[in-house]
C-alpha cells in the first residue's frame, strides 16, 4: 500500500496534530481497504460469532426464562472470542510478506500506526456486533435496541482493541503466536468484560443509572488508560 507515504507528503504542510491524525487515518483506510478487497476477516468473524451463539444455545439451554438474564453474558463472550480472531488476523496480515517493516520504515510517529491499527480493529468488532445484535434479537426475541447498550458496546470494544492491538503486536513476534494471544489478552481483559457484561445486563433490565455507573466508570477508565499504555509501549514492541 502506498497510503503511508502519501500521508506523509500530505503531512508536510500541516500542523502537527492534524498531520498525526492524517497518518492514523491512512492506516485505518489501508486496513479497511484490504479487508474490503479480500472480505476474509469479517466473513470468518461473523460466521464464528454465529457459531459461538449456537454453541451457547445448546450449552446453556437458552429458553425464554433464562435468556433475558444471560443475553449480555452470551453476547460479550461471543464478541471476546470473535475479537481475538480479528486481532490475530490483523497482525498476521502485517507479518506476512513483512508488511510491518514497510510501515515502520515510513517516517511517521510509530504510535500513529498503533492507533490506526486499534481503530481498524474496533471498527471490525463493531461491524460484527452490528450484524450479530439484530440476528440475536430475532432468534431469541429479545429487544436489544437500547442506546445504553450501544454506548457500552462502543466503550467495551474500544478498551478491548486498545489492549488487544498492543498484545497482538507482542504475540506476533513470539513462537506460538495465535495460541499465545488469548492467554495474554484474557486475564488483562477480564475487568473490561465483567464491567461490560454487568453494564449491558443492567441496561437491558432497565435499571436506574445509579446501579450502572460503577461498571460504566470501569469501562471509561479502561477506554482511557489502555490507549495511553499502548501509546507508551508500542514503540518498544515493534523496535528491532
Amino acid at each position, binding site marked *: 500500500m502506498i497510503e503511508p507515504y502519501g500521508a506523509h507528503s500530505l503531512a508536510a504542510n500541516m500542523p502537527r496534530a492534524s498531520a498525526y491524525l492524517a497518518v492514523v487515518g491512512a492506516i485505518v483506510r489501508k486496513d479497511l481497504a484490504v479487508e474490503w478487497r479480500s472480505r476474509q476477516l469479517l466473513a470468518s468473524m461473523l460466521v464464528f460469532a454465529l457459531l459461538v451463539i449456537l454453541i451457547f444455545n445448546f450449552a446453556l439451554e437458552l429458553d425464554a426464562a433464562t435468556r433475558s438474564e444471560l443475553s449480555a453474558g452470551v453476547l460479550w463472550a461471543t464478541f471476546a472470542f470473535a475479537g481475538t480472531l480479528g486481532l490475530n488476523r490483523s497482525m498476521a496480515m502485517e507479518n506476512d510478506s513483512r508488511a510491518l517493516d514497510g510501515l515502520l520504515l515510513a517516517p511517521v510517529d510509530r504510535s500513529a500506526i498503533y492507533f490506526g491499527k486499534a481503530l481498524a480493529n474496533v471498527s471490525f468488532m463493531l461491524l460484527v456486533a452490528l450484524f450479530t445484535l439484530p440476528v440475536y434479537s430475532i432468534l431469541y426475541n429479545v429487544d436489544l435496541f437500547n442506546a445504553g447498550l450501544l454506548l457500552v458496546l462502543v466503550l467495551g470494544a474500544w478498551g478491548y482493541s486498545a489492549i488487544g492491538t498492543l498484545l497482538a503486536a*507482542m504475540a506476533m513476534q*513470539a513462537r506460538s503466536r495465535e495460541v*499465545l494471544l488469548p492467554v*495474554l489478552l484474557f*486475564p*488483562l481483559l477480564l475487568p473490561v468484560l*465483567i464491567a461490560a457484561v454487568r453494564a449491558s445486563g443492567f441496561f437491558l433490565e432497565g435499571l436506574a443509572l445509579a446501579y450502572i455507573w460503577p461498571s460504566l466508570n470501569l469501562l471509561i477508565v479502561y477506554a482511557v488508560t489502555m490507549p495511553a499504555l499502548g501509546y507508551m509501549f508500542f514503540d*518498544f514492541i515493534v523496535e528491532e
Partner: protein
Amino acid sequence: MASNSVQPKPRLLSALDLTSVVLMLAATWMVFFYAPSAQPEAGGEAQRIFYFHVSTGWIGMAAFISAAVAGVVYLIRPNRKWDVFSVAAVEIGLVYSFINIATGSIWARPVWNTWWTWDPRLVTATVMQLTFLAYLLLRQSIEDPERRARFGAIYAILGSLTVPLTYLSIRIWRTIHPVVIGSGDPSAQGTFDMTPLMLQTLLFSLLAFTVFGLTLLWHRVRLGWLGEQVEQLRLKAMR
C-alpha cells in the same frame, strides 16, 4: 562478562537464611500461643490462619509491583540484571499469592461454608495470578533474550494493574470478604475486631514473611545470574 568464576555465596545471605528460619519459627509460635483465639463467627481457632494469609498476600502483591518497577527501569536502561530481578520477583509472587488463595480457602470452608465463591476479591486475586502465569508463558515462547526481557518488562507493567484492583476490590465493591484493616462492607462475613495481641502477631508475621521473601528473592536472583553465566559459557563453547 565481568567474570566467569562462580561467586561464593555472600555471607550476608547466609545470615539472612538463618534469620528467616528464626523469625518464621517465632511467628508460628506467636500465631498459635501468643495471639488469642477469635470469636466463633470469625472461625475461632481457624482464624489463626489469617496471620499467614495476610502476610503471604502482602508478599505476593509487593513482588508483582517490584517486578513492574524493575520492568520500568529496564525499559529506560536496558540492563540484563533488571530482567533477572523481574522474573525472580514474579515467580516468588506467584508462589506466595497461591499460598494466599489456598489459606483463604481453608479458612473459608468453616466460616463461609464453602472452599470457593465468586466474590470480587477472590475473582480479582485469581485474575492477578493468571496474569502473571501468562507472563511466564510469554517469556517461554520468545527465544531472543533481549526481546524476551523487553516484552516481559511491558507485560509485567500491564499486569501490575491487577494488583491495585485486587487490593481495592474489597473496598469498592460489595463483598463478603472481611476488611480487617480499615472499615469494611457490612455484608462481609467473618469479620472480627483485632485486639492488641492480634495486631502484634500480625505485624510480627508481616516482618517475618518480608525477611523470608527477601531472602528467597536474593536466592532466586543469584540463581538467575548463574543461569545467565551458564548460557554465556555455552555460547562461548559453541563458537
